[in-house]
């Protein structure tokens, strides 16, 4: 554990709401312990601001365990900060050094309008999921859990895609603000599992249509999303999604289903 406290300069994006213009404001963060998480550092700054009667810096957060996907922050040019495969709440101040200047911005994408300061509105993600990111099954009357055997490798693959936390870092990282990594994660999870087969092609079409409607950009395969994703969701998911999407467009659904039988 490193000792000694740090003094930092923060350049923070402040913006009252989506209607007003924003700007960078500089703050001092003093006596910061390297053991603090990045959000705890902001808590300390905010307590100081509140006591002075100033508005605290607003940012989204909840679980502070890297799983709810609520925290965001573009830190020194990276979504969730400089380290790989973690969320902002899991980033600790020991990753910075005394005297450093840290620039903190919100996710920037047309489809994610600013709520206030560093918080953005990610409800577009919910609407994409609502468009078809599910298996249509009512409560009750379902078969026994072991009635469908699923090979472990398939289950594990599906799981890898299911771990997406819906944080939006992929969109923030992408120069086109594309949501393909996020959408493809759900499409892949359900597309791999037997339960997801009946609606496989409808699902991909409706989700992609909604994604376009929300104003996300197109994927040009730069891979920034994968590099910045805290859950290491794979780019191959996008290829899978494109495949399903094309198949759905080109052929009749039933034929596709026959053809792919026994495949992934």
């Amino acid at each position, binding site marked *: *554990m*490193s000792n000694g406290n740090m003094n930092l300069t923060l350049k923070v994006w402040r913006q009252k709401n989506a209607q007003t213009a924003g700007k960078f404001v500089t703050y001092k963060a003093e006596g910061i*312990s*390297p*053991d*603090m*998480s990045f959000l705890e*550092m902001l*808590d*300390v700054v905010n*307590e100081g601001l*509140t*006591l002075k009667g100033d*508005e*605290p810096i*607003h940012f989204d957060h909840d*679980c*502070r*365990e890297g*799983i*709810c*996907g*609520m925290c965001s922050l573009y830190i020194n040019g990276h979504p969730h900060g400089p380290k790989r495969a973690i969320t902002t709440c*899991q980033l600790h101040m020991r990753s910075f050094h005394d005297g450093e200047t840290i620039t903190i911005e919100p996710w920037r994408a047309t489809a994610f309008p600013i*709520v206030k300061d560093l*918080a953005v509105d*990610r*409800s577009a993600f*919910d609407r994409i*999921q*609502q468009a*078809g*990111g*599910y*298996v*249509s*099954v*009512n*409560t*009750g009357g*379902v*078969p*026994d*859990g*072991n009635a469908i*055997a*699923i*090979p*472990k490798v398939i*289950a*594990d693959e*599906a*799981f890898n895609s299911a*771990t997406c*936390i*819906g944080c939006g870092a992929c969109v923030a990282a992408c120069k086109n603000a594309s949501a393909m990594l996020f959408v493809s994660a759900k499409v892949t*999870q359900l597309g791999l*599992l037997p*339960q*997801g087969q009946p609606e496989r092609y409808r699902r991909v079409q409706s989700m992609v249509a909604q994604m376009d409607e929300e104003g996300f950009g197109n994927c040009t395969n730069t891979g920034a999303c994968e590099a910045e994703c805290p859950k290491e969701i794979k780019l191959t998911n996008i290829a899978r999604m494109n495949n399903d999407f094309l198949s759905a467009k080109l052929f009749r659904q039933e034929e596709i289903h026959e053809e792919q039988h026994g495949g992934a």
Partner: protein
Amino acid sequence: MSLDAKIPQGPLAEKWSKHKFNLKLVNPANKRKYDIIIVGTGLAGASAAASLAELGYNVKSFCFQDSPRRAHSIAAQGGINAAKNYQNDGDSVYRLFYDTIKGGDYRAREGNVYRLAEVSVNIIDQCVAQGVPFAREYGGLLDNRSFGGSQVSRTFYARGQTGQQLLLGAYSALNRQIHAGKVKMYTRTEMLDVVVIDGHAKGIVTRNMLTGAIETHAGHAVLLCTGGYSNVFYLSTNAIGSNVTAAWRAHKRGAFFGNPCYTQIHPTCIPVSGDHQSKLTLMSESLRNDGRVWAPKTKELAEQLRKGTLKADQVKEDDRDYFLERKYPAFGNLVPRDVASRNAKEMVEDGRGVGTSGFAVFLDFADAIKRLGEETVAAKYGNLFDMYIQITDENPYKQPMRIYPAVHYTMGGLWVDYNLSTNVPGLYALGECNFSDHGANRLGASALMQGLSDGYFVIPYTLGDYLATIGPKKVDTSHPAFEQTKKEVIEHVNKLLALKGTKTAEAYHRDLGHIMWEYCGMARTEEGLIKAKGLIKALKVDFWKNAKVVGENEEVNASLERAGRVADFIELGELMIDDALMRRESCGGHFRVESQTESGEAKRDDENFAFVAAWEFKGENQPEELHKEQLVFESVHLSQRNYA
């Protein structure tokens, strides 16, 4: 007022099916004439909203996060129990029932717990059908692990992210209904009060957290699925936003609060590192399968370890006290959570705590690494080790982990009957928000089970009975009670905004947490509780004089949100103390130092305390009135818990 738990008559195994048959049904064509308000989108709320909308009811669903998918349930790690007996190791509905009753130290209702065990089986099927990617064996069938306190493998899991996967399943079912227009979803909306008309709950008052708009919503029934109140302790493993406001405001409108002092403390959390700490992180219980818990044998060694002049791996085998293995040879490191927690506390009080703060003991994997190899240990616990490294900057492959107990779950909550109805007709409480099913202690992997059981399989039946009774007469917000309650909510908000003192709400929250942890935490004494009562009273007065809230209502205002929640936590804190004082016995997570066995275990007093404490609000700053629901045990024999 009399408390009727409405537990159906007849043999345990037939209660639920008989009851289901006796409940009134709502004709399918009439269902769309009913509006249901559901607050909370965790496992309980999302599953209830989806199931009720599928049946045809109109649902309005609320959460304070930006998306229903972020409800606190997402954070659950370990797993969910179900009496499937897939492992052929002798599990059964009765055994799950029995373990849960015993684990809760005989302070839960037999009828409820049996039903929970009974429907546990359906939960797994439901989730699998939704595409929840549970762990599988090579043969393609579902895999199970075992979990604290049980001798069979009945825990279903999805790596260390079971809560996330289950919640995403329920969220997707909810999404489907939102898309179908049967659920209207209100995100970033905080419920601030319940509207009661002629003794029945008919709606809620909310604050739009983006615009500050205070709004009213009417419905034929209100379901609170708002989670637990561990954050009354300030530091807990819960998400920062978890709070008691919804339940507390309902309490002030007449709903009884059950067993408020029952708190689960989890033994394996990463210790506090300093005053800046905003929350604690749980390390899964499964670590105790291979990790060995120890403290140095002497204070002198502990002192050297704290100063850093001695490293843990330099402490000789003879100088280590593996205190759980020593005191509980049969269960060893796998004793239940309350027992493991209290023992760690004793070590610290004995001056043998480690880490810079002295508030920690070791969880050591050296033997496991020697026995199994680093690779196997990494395969089993790698993600947890990574998380530990991230937070502490220490490497548990080389040095033992430091762990300390932390507040994790609250067994208390709104009192509900067998139908999940509070004593206010039309007001229901589901999931961690209610008090039922866990007794004085919650076993691992049982909270997820309860949340989903309530939402998918209980409320769809029991709610219909009430709705059929009241009939589909339209309710709307034109009744003066809506305007009146709204007015009171606005007054409360303005009162908070007028606080222009010198101390942040967060600082008050921290002070409250210190009091609660010190005097109403792992061990409680009469003397300490009386002292805490005075301290909280003073804190409350001070809060309403010297707190500082910035900004205005008509904007995003985290300062205001926090202040409202802290004010409610302070009042809840007072009630928890009263409840703990009243209960002059130890049971499960409630340990009264005055009541222990010779070997230092929790000693119950079944003669005088085999009841649920249900508290009734009697007005601001008035003592609450205690109502007792006597617990009746027909199937199990009450015995002393003993793990030696």
